[in-house]
């Protein structure tokens, strides 16, 4: 697994080297900072997705949860509530939606695809109802710092992303909960028989994903200076792509957050590079799609070869 993560990293560095050779605008401090900043939202959502996919599930509702927690956050801020109230409220909405997903999967025995597909529609609709379809805007400077602020020369969204990954990495690799995530994905029945409270942990895993969507919503709302009920469409696909490029298996049981972060960066670098090179937006979609499929294809072939 170490070697595979390393492979993804080499892929990223290679991509950077090619772009560096093709355009003088790529390898500048400001451009690299742009890339990590642009990657941060997808990376945060993908961190939660990694938990879910390692456990053998899938979460299609992340984009809609981003929208719903975003509009709750925006509405509270607009009505003059302090950041200390609005942010926990947004986080609670995200966790709540996630736990509901988890309960439907573990206690309701629904396939994750169906449970989260339902939530995808429900949360989107709730966001639209809540705002009557209109974007919410007009927040204080203090909140906007989350998008515009810097620590040293590092933009605030990047700090948030790094914090998320540091904490999530520790949870996934150093705690019992983290080990159960792998165990459930590897063999759910065996895990249950060895006395692990599988239902409880599965529910919590979707809660983690919901929380990550809420964190992403906070950063996105600050960045747009506006909370849109239509925000976050297709985020689920970007997050799944980043996770899978990063070497996490859709079959569950294996994967890493380091890999997902590199996967998200590959997508960010690719989009940035295609913009810098002035590639038409139609062609960009083809390239991005091909890279996703190609990366996983090579991975699968190599695995079969090794086995």
């Amino acid at each position: 697994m170490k070697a595979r993560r390393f492979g993804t990293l080499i892929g990223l560095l290679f991509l950077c080297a090619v772009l560096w050779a093709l355009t003088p605008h790529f390898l500048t401090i400001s451009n690299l900072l742009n890339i990590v900043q642009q990657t941060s939202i997808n990376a945060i959502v993908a961190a939660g997705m990694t938990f879910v996919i390692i456990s053998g599930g899938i979460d299609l509702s992340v984009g809609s949860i981003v929208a719903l927690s975003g509009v709750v956050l925006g509405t509270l801020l607009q009505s003059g509530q302090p950041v200390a109230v609005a942010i926990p409220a947004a986080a609670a909405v995200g966790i709540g939606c996630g736990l509901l997903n988890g309960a439907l999967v573990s206690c309701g025995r629904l396939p994750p695809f169906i449970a989260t597909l339902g939530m995808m529609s429900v949360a989107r609709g709730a966001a639209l109802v809540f705002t009557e379809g209109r974007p919410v805007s007009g927040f204080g400077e203090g909140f906007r710092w989350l998008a515009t602020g810097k620590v040293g020369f590092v933009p605030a969204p990047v700090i948030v992303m790094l914090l998320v990954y540091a904490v999530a990495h520790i949870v996934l690799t150093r705690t019992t909960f983290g080990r159960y995530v792998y165990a459930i994905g590897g063999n759910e029945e065996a895990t249950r028989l060895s006395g692990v409270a599988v239902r409880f942990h599965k529910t919590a895993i979707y809660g983690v994903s919901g929380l990550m969507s809420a964190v992403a919503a906070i950063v996105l709302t600050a960045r747009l200076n506006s909370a849109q009920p239509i925000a976050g469409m297709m985020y689920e696909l970007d997050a799944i792509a980043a996770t899978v490029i990063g070497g996490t298996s859709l079959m569950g049981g294996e994967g890493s957050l380091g890999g997902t972060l590199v996967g998200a960066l590959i997508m960010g670098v690719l989009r940035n590079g295609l913009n810098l090179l002035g590639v038409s937006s139609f062609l960009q979609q083809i390239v991005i799609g091909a890279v996703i499929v190609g990366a996983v294809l090579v991975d699968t072939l190599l695995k079969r070869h090794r086995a």
Partner: protein
Amino acid sequence: MKIFSALIMFACLVVSVSCNREAPAADDEKTVALVLKTLNHPFFVDMRRGAQEAADRLGVTLQVQAAEREIDVDKQMQIVENLLQTGIDVLAITPSGSREIVAALVKATNANVPIVIVDTRLDAKAAADAGVQARTFIGSDNYEGGRLAGDHVVRITDGKARVGILEGIPGHETGDSRLRGFRDAVAKAPGIAVVASQPANWERDQGFNVFQNMLQAHADIDTVFAASDLMALGAIEAIAAAGRTGRIRVVGFDALDDAKKAIEAGTMDASVAQFPYEMGKAAVESAVKIMAGETLPPDIMVKLEMVTKPR
């Protein structure tokens, strides 16, 4: 491992890019960036054609980029940030969000890149608060267009109609202005009642679904105004599906080619023509004037026209 796939994909990319590019621009040639909402819409495709024509004529390099989806303002912001890295000389943009995009334009302002706004206005307050000032706005007066459509409806219905409205994405300046114009115009005719008004988010398939539902709820609707032709074309399909073709008048906005054909065929009554080609052309021409140090008027209005079947 994945290095191979990345390598192969990138090789394809490099080849396609090199094939795609016409003669490489001379180093001293100025670059104008035109950032569109999307290129999935004929309106913006026309705008790009106009801009390209002007760029070729005036000897500037034109870089056109667009988000995949019209509503994806975050992607549009990323495009602006990325383009600024390449040292563009003027940024022309059709904002996907009148307020949201301001944060990216602040970066352009800080980089001393002049801004030209096309088609959709910036939110005046958000721009002023952030210290963003566009050199000019190029577009049609959407309010005026909506009013033209409203007047037309009053005329063809002799001031008596039950109207259903298909709105664009809520909160968009473009759609909101068209609707205000339309409503103000029909308000003058007491016999006209707007019985339903629902967003179909600028899309054809949503236009179909929303209007089908509207007809279910209000079978007496005899006139529909859609804030864009794609939605109007969707509504026409819904009318056909309900077997009521020819009995419901359809007025759209944009005068797309498909809409003109529908008007010719009699399934649609009228559409307000905008001239995106002219907007694209004016955007590049204005950019060139800015680079030459000229000051531009705050608004450059592009004409509007009512397209109807000759009677």
